[in-house]
């Protein structure tokens, strides 16, 4: 899959990953010293640590217009700007930007890289201050709640008391729900998209396959590849290829590729990438390893697996949101089989039982889980309308 010519480039890419993990380009960095440790669910503290983040727009005088955008498993803080590694546009420029539902002319948008990530927030590719070398598996296992706890510290650091809104899809949506559960008074409005209040057995199973692919790569070296000058790019690429299938749908794959051959008329009777869909997946795998750290992938998938809001609230999901003042807008997609509508419906039922102010819309699309990142005008209309309504209630815009 990765031929020898590109292998050399990718080795360089691995070095760049280590560099970006400590010194991300085009990012702001908040550093938390020994006086401000991050207390983790694993029972240990992370200190010192840092969070890389980007901001767009201007914080208003009474600091009431801040929106936090939470990224998904393989996302990062480059939500509305060109990515320094891939040179591609920001991953949510469909939703965030001038004239878009989240317009920096009105809102102060904050997008942090999660703890455990590899784009500048402390994670396994960051330098362990005790050893001066990358943490690797010495980095403590983190949870979604830890990520949100760190984000709350970032908010304190920025001097912002309450977020006007927290918005995110997939793992980002989990963070949104965790924000609402952990800090209800700090979240005026929450938009969890294509997510669930817990990771299903099927999703844990998919993640385990991805992790095993990474750990089965001899280059992984027990997680010490940064120290030993290797890089488990094959394992990580396979993990990405498998995961990518779960982000799409049978219908979308059929529409996009069908059984079409890649640059050939007939099958080669070999194991080349004869089919377009194979070639596409290989491309997804190869480009992913340029910008992502394999250990980080292990940590973040683990964080999602551990996510279970009901368990944290004594077994009853509604208790996680009891008496919440937050208004919610839950969105799901018909063809999403990773986080199917039934999961969002369960979230909505719990919010209803908690007497929360909740909107819920299911959008018809064949694009699968990835639909939240794609051009879905109905999603934009819903997010725009919901935020408009919330901003009137918050007094950000004059009531009609």
């Amino acid at each position, binding site marked *: 899959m990765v031929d020898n010519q590109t292998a050399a480039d990718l080795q360089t890419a691995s070095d760049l990953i280590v560099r970006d993990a400590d010194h991300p380009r085009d990012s702001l960095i908040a550093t938390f010293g020994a006086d401000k440790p991050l207390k983790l669910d694993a029972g240990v503290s992370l200190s010192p640590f840092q969070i890389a983040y980007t901001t767009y727009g201007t914080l208003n005088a009474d600091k009431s217009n801040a929106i936090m955008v939470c990224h998904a498993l393989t996302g990062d803080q480059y939500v509305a700007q060109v990515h320094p590694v891939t040179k591609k546009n920001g991953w949510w420029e469909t939703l965030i930007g001038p004239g878009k539902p989240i317009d920096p002319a009105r809102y102060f948008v904050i997008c942090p890289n999660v703890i455990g990530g590899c784009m500048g927030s402390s994670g396994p590719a960051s330098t362990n201050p005790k050893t001066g070398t990358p943490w690797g598996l010495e980095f403590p296992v983190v949870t979604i709640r830890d990520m949100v706890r760190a984000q709350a510290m970032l908010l304190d650091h920025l001097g912002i008391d309450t977020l006007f809104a927290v918005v995110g899809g997939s793992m980002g949506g989990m963070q949104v729900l965790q924000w609402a559960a952990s800090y209800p008074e700090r979240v005026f409005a929450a938009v969890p998209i294509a997510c669930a209040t817990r990771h299903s057995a099927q999703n844990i199973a998919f993640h385990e396959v991805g992790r095993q692919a990474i750990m089965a790569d001899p280059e992984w070296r027990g997680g010490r590849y940064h120290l030993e000058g290797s890089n488990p790019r094959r394992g990580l690429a396979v993990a990405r290829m498998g995961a990518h299938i779960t982000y799409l749908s049978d219908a979308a794959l059929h529409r996009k590729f069908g059984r079409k051959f890649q640059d050939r008329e007939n099958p080669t009777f070999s194991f080349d990438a004869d089919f377009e869909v194979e070639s596409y997946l290989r491309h997804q795998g190869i480009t992913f390893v340029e910008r992502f750290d394999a250990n980080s992938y292990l940590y973040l998938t683990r964080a999602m697996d551990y996510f279970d809001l009901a368990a944290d609230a004594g077994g009853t999901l509604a208790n996680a949101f009891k008496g919440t003042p937050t208004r919610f807008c839950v969105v799901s997609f018909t063809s999403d089989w990773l986080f199917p509508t039934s999961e969002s419906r369960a979230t909505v039922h719990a919010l209803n039982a908690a*007497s929360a102010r909740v*909107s*819920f*819309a*299911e959008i018809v699309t064949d694009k699968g889980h990835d639909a939240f990142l794609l051009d879905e005008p109905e999603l934009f209309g819903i997010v725009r309308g*919901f935020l408009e309504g919330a901003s009137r209630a918050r007094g950000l815009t004059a009531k009609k």
Partner: protein
Amino acid sequence: MATMTDFNAAKIARTAGGTRVDLVLVSQMVARGAKVLDVGCGDGELLHLLGESRDVDGRGIELSREGVNECVAKGLAVIQGDADTDLGDYPDDAFDYVILSQTLQATRHPRVVLEHMLRIGRHAVVSFPNFGHWTVRLQLLFAGHMPQTDILPYSWYDTPNIHHCTIKDFVQLCNQIGVKIEKAVALNAWGSPLRLNAPWWFWNLFGEQGVFLLSRKD
């Protein structure tokens, strides 16, 4: 359960301001600042009206996706759901009022829906087309076919309305399940309320719609 398109098809009298008269009447039965659940809220016309005129904290359930997405895009708190299956998920006493406007006849289990409404809310407001109206009776009696009127424009084979009732039937159901009728109004075809002191049979014959404010008997 009815969808928003049903109401676009049905010609229901409107005020000079363009608001459906039955919705104005329903909104007048709701106390200011109350917490309200509108079941089968369509495109959100009533929720919008309640928010504007009664300062109500309103929520909605709607079956049709288009209706829900339109409501949410308007900033209303509406979820996609079905009156027949989803009311059971709401806790007791969650609302001051639960409203079912022009939807009762389209539910699979009207009695169960009504019971849930008065469990979830302290009050219920129900409006429905009266199948005892004289035009309905005459069509069946003389023309011999299933009635079609401005408010019930469907053919028998494509109507969403599967449980028609008359005002008399509805009063009977209320008595049967021990519900107190706080207030009842019948509207004629032009949307004007019929004489308040008229007997039930008169309403049942000349009322095109019935609008009821209900509460628990205890």
